[in-house]
């Protein structure tokens, strides 16, 4: 009887660290694209607004805090 390979066998050879690294990288790329687009819009269409720079700073600080919170417990 032919042996059918388990399609999920790659999971046993995949370490949780590499999965985490991929997830974190993908999330960071998504966040970076979002941030670039938002910054572009603030500066192109609302740069005369006094709230533009503080808003971007708050976005980066809060995002950084969430990143640290999310990855702080991982070793």
């Amino acid at each position, binding site marked *: 009887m032919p042996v059918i390979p388990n399609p999920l066998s790659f999971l046993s050879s995949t370490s949780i660290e590499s999965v*985490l690294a991929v997830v974190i990288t993908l999330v960071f790329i998504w966040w970076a694209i979002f941030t670039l687009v*938002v910054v572009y*819009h603030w500066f192109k*269409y609302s740069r005369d607004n006094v709230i533009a720079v503080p*808003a971007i700073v708050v976005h980066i600080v809060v*995002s950084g805090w969430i990143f640290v919170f*999310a990855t702080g*417990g991982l*070793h």
Partner: protein
Amino acid sequence: MDAAHLHAGEKVVLSLRKHPLILVGKLIPFAFLDYLPYLLVQMSEYLREMNPTTMVNLADALSFDSPWMRFIVGIYWLFIWMGAFGVFTDYFLDRWVVTNERIIDVNQKSFWSRQVASLFLHRVQNVETDVSGFFHTIFGFGTVSVESAGAEVNRIRMTGLSRPEHVRDVILREAARHETERPIVRVGM
């Protein structure tokens, strides 16, 4: 509106955004979604108290002491934050500008869709205000609709504006001023 986008001699009379309460209303769902993980943790602790002999201890897994829980909730919060910040940005990019020549409607539909429309004051035919609803009446915000005359009727609707009656008065005043200052061209004389 940047000065670079205005015509020569054009001056900004009013620069308008929606009432801040509109922004608060849009951000409330994000605040609720932010709080959901806490509810989940509290619920799992409640279940443990109800049935302490259970084989699967959800309370330990769904605790902020667990690094996995922190990671999943952190990623979740990051997306919630991006959504909320996107709404905040959209609020500030949507605006109406009344100049001494026209009304400019800047509508940022999404990050990849921006609509800018102008209605010249000499074409203004009708300006309507509409304040209806409990919060609208209490906090004094509503809709101003400006209709243009001509073969093709255009309309600019400014929704969620603070003091809509004041905005209507300014538009009517500027339209009247524009009308009186226009040179009269007599045809066939």
